[in-house]
């Protein structure tokens, strides 16, 4: 029985001509104990996927089963309750409340569960010890380094003992030392049996994952298991091997350099060719949207 089961989940944003298809009939199932890395270029639907998984957003179409329970049409308050009890969030921009101390921030989810002050601060304190932050309990977020703040945020995500931890680019704002600190912590948590889903742009970080999902234009284009401690095969292939030119690429003027994933590199290069490829993307999206409409 998978922990998470998405079937043909689509998500549309906007109205009329501004409609974008953020998720395009995505099917995905994740078992307990998996450590899933989600990769893909900006705008590929990674964050939307995570938001849907984290019950922050509702899919437009399709079904979502969490722990074998249908959750795609939950009311706001039920979703809030489920988020509180089963899901822990880690954000790229940390999202700790600046006016609260680290301890208060970590205890906040317990507050919403209605746990008394003494008990929740004790619990929060224990979790902070687990992430190595016990001597920073009474600091305010602005007094800490990025890596430390993210550790506090991880503690907050853990404090409710969630069955899934969802991290949207947890290392996106961190330097390499901070990234390592955070990823080591996440992998330690994973070893204790937690299910973690995280988005990353950094191919190196697939080393920590047990599975890598690649997304593009709202679809999962590649889904492969990977060994802990090794960079995922697809990434490696794209990183270390020369991509081949196809006739289509030639026609569209896509260079070999642009095909070298990571896609972030593509988006960074600002050649006139890039605009062309983007145009291609848009038209493809539109085609898909029409397809969704007709079904």
């Amino acid at each position, binding site marked *: 029985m998978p922990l998470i089961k998405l079937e043909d989940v689509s998500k549309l944003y906007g109205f009329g001509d501004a409609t974008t298809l953020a998720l395009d009939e995505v099917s995905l199932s994740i078992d307990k104990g998996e450590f899933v890395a989600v990769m893909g270029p900006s705008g590929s639907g990674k964050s939307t996927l995570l938001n849907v998984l984290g019950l922050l957003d509702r899919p437009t179409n399709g079904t979502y089963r969490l722990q074998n329970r249908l959750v795609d049409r939950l009311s706001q308050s039920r979703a809030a309750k489920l988020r509180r009890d089963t899901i822990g969030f880690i954000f790229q921009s940390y*999202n700790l409340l600046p006016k609260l101390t680290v301890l208060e921030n970590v205890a*906040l989810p317990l507050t*919403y569960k209605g746990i008394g002050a003494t008990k929740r601060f004790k619990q929060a304190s224990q979790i902070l010890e687990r992430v190595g932050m016990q001597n920073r309990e009474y600091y305010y977020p602005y007094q800490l380094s990025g890596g430390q703040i993210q550790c506090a945020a991880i503690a907050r995500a853990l404090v409710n003992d969630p069955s899934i931890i969802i991290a949207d680019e947890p290392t996106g704002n961190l330097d390499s030392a901070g990234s390592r600190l955070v990823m080591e912590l996440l992998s330690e948590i994973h070893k204790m049996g937690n299910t973690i889903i995280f988005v990353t742009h950094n191919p190196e970080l697939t080393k920590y994952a047990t599975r890598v999902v690649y997304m593009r234009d709202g679809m999962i284009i590649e889904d492969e298991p990977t060994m802990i401690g090794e960079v995922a095969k697809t990434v490696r292939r794209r990183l270390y091997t020369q991509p081949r030119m196809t006739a289509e690429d030639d026609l569209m003027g896509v260079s070999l350099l642009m095909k070298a994933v990571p896609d972030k590199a593509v988006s960074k290069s600002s050649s006139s060719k890039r605009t062309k490829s983007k145009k291609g993307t848009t038209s493809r999206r539109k085609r898909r949207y029409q397809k969704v409409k007709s079904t």
Partner: protein
Amino acid sequence: MSLRSGYIHTAVATMRTNRWRSLLTMFGITVGVASVIVIIGISQGVKNEITNQVYAYSKNVITVTSKAANLSNFGVPQIPTVSTLTNQDVSSISKIKGVKASVPMIVESGLVTGEKTFRGGVVIATSPDLPSVINQSLAYGSFFSSADTSSDPAVLGYNASSGLFKENVPLGFSFTWRGQTFIVDGVLNSFRATPFSNNTLYNNAIFIPVASAKQLIPGGGSLFQILVRVDNSKDLSQVAARISAALLRNHGGQSNFSVLLPSQVAQNNTGILNLLTELTIGIALISLFVGGVGIMNVMLVSVAERIHEIGIRKAIGASNRQVMSQFLVESTTVSITGGLIGIGLALIADLVLKLSTNLSPSINWEIIVIGAAVSMLIGIVFGSIPAIRAAGKEPIEALRNE
């Protein structure tokens, strides 16, 4: 509850960070609550004073007035031009069982000239029993007696005495009214006077015997009221009923008079005061309303500023209701703090009034509790729209808002 105290903690922290904004927001509530309490306090103080006076001077006194006297609106006691009461009524009342004494009060205006001309006075024709009926002693001299028919005696109210004569003790001095010369027999002690009560009238009055008045007033004058002292205070209402019955007989079944117990007199006297109080409270309530709108405005701004925070709270599991409670507690904390400051200011104002004026405002704990409750209610009512708005935010949208 821990959650509630958490909200209050957050609310206080928010208030501290936005100190000026919170203070200015509270201001409306503070002013409103303070003015309502001060006004009620003053009015209550004056009412107490009037009631005390009524009971001091006419504890066992039934007041019979012409209905015309109460025709005026707002319960302001007025001197009627035409009275329905007659001398026959006076004599029937004096015969009723349980009545110790009764005095007619015939009120006439007119220029009175002694050493000086006194313009503020009224002439009241009454009988020798008046001091015993209204329980007031004389400062100097004596009240005219029934035996004293040879000359035209008069007794002066305290202010009338100083208005007519330069002399402090004008006993034996004379003054003229409508061409008739009167000799001052005595001066009444000053009545403790409050606005809107009969005592002001008494202090300015010149009392003369009914017999003298009859010759000078065409038609015998208008019988303003009849004061009736009863033997025993327990019989007050029974005697009042008997008086009513007797007068009904005299008036051929028409009840064009009223028989008032002391408590009713007090009520009548405070009528205009009540009206003024209600008016001013109404204005103060407008200030409270505006204060409430101010709170709503500031809370809406606060919600808009903190959308991201709302997003975070929702992402980690706050339900709509919990987010709503948080903002409601915040607006209520602001309004209650404002209310408490208002109560404090009102108490200070009360003290200042007590020390510097002869008003003695009385603020009782009920008013304070009501003041606090009203400010809390304002926080809840005007905070609810911003709170509902905050609660209704979609978590995703809220998180994106930085």
